[in-house]
């Protein structure tokens, strides 16, 4: 911590410690259909953040009394592998994992036509293999693709990204080092075609002006992620077709 004060995270000409511009996102690689025992799955490498998502459902709710009469019950389980972070993490879910599971579910559910599948469950399992910042954004974005892979009808894809304030400047797509040294972190999830914000959180301190700029930057970032999601879907179904598989 004390060293991060000395080491500058943003250079004089606005270049970040990993070479990005302030509003530049990290390299993102989505892949659909990576698991065999799920109804849908996706893998994402988002900078060094690496996450697997598997979707099970719609399937019978278990235990049955949890079923909802008018729609599918959506659950998300966000978990970090013990070796995904700097210090070894106990496998018991932390309070942070419990909260993130809740906000991730709430970020995805508005996109799903849950009313098509009353009395069933849709379970979204997220396993963070390596955490290097923005794991909730990467999880939501990848889970959208896993839901598509599962053939679950959706209103739109949910794209997600975070803005941080580092050394007084707003930066897009915060990585771990920036997050820890930064003054704030503000992740958003967004369905571009619906103009719908499904997740918004903020930690830290920002002025009202910075807040307004952040929202703009977040929309821009989400649309970039959205494009990458669409490309990933296209390339997945193209290869499926060329392999003679059913979509």
């Amino acid at each position, binding site marked *: 911590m004390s060293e991060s004060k000395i080491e500058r995270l943003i250079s004089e000409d606005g270049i970040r410690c990993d070479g990005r511009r302030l509003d530049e996102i990290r390299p993102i690689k989505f892949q659909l259909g990576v698991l065999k025992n799920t109804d849908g799955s996706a893998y994402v490498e988002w900078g060094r953040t690496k996450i697997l998502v598997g979707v099970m459902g719609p399937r019978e709710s278990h235990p049955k009394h*949890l079923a909802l009469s*008018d729609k599918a019950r959506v659950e998300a389980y966000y978990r970090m592998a013990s070796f995904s972070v700097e210090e070894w993490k106990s496998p018991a879910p932390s*309070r942070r994992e419990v*909260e993130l*599971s809740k906000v991730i579910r709430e970020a995805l559910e508005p996109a799903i036509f849950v009313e098509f599948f009353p009395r069933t469950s849709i379970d979204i399992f997220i396993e963070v293999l390596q955490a290097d910042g923005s794991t909730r954004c990467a999880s939501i974005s990848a889970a959208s693709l896993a839901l598509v892979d599962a053939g679950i009808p959706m209103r739109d894809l949910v794209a997600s990204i975070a803005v941080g304030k580092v050394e007084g400047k707003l930066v897009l797509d915060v990585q771990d080092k920036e997050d820890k040294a930064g003054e704030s972190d503000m992740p958003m999830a967004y369905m571009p075609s619906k103009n719908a914000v499904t997740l918004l959180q*903020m930690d*830290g*301190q920002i002025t009202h002006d910075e*807040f307004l700029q952040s929202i703009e930057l977040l929309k821009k970032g989400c649309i970039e992620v959205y494009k990458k999601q669409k490309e990933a879907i296209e390339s997945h179904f193209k290869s499926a077709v060329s392999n003679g598989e059913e979509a």
Partner: protein
Amino acid sequence: MSQRIVPTVKRKQIIELSESGRRMDGRTLTDYREITIQTGLVEKAEGSAMVSIGGTKVVAGIKFEVGDPFPDIPNEGVMQVGAEFVPFASPEFEPGKPDEVAVELARVVDRGLRESKVLDTTKLCLIPGKKVWIVHVDVYILDHCGNLIDTAALAALSAMLSASMPEACVDGDTVRLTGRRIPMPITDIPINVTLAKIGNKLFVDPSFEEEEVLDCRFSVAFKENGMLCAIQKGESGYITPEEVLRAVEIAKDKSQEIRKKVVESLKLKSDKVGES
């Protein structure tokens, strides 16, 4: 219990009424229900507060204990925020059930206090790297009639503002309490404001029946200097970016109103905070 039928009729009523700027309980869309703050109820705690917003009632207590610092911040005290849902607060709360709602509540209250640096934890170190003050801030939900977040945040804050802390005397490797009490190192009065989005309207301080039909919840906390220090969107609906901006504008005004109320209720001298 899990089969909550969405009360469609009530939602329609609420939305229709809101067109003329009114609510079921007679409030305007930007009114809070009555707020009461009572401090000092629990004399055994370092600080305590019973706070009501309308029928929603929360008690918060502060306890200090000597403990170990986190390895990565060896010279700072530790603040731990917990939230318990007492089962008599709502027919839906079950005893002993660990609940994601309680976890979210505790973490949102925690962030509101922590990010605004209400408590200057750098002043809570006893023996650098070895012994620091652990400050427990626990909120107990006693009656749930809507808007738990604001009520819990206000109870936690009021307990903190009304607290004094034990004076400690460090001699080598041992910590001894003098028995005297000293003021808390308080540096801010952050206020959390929650709105519900129902249809295309925003409702400040949603009641229980409004929460049952809302699209989503939006909470934002402000520091005294007007900076935002925490945001949390909740529940499985969405909100547009434009509505978010509107919500933040409304919340900013409300936060000032409530902070005034806190300062009056606790009879804080304006110079007490921010100079410790």
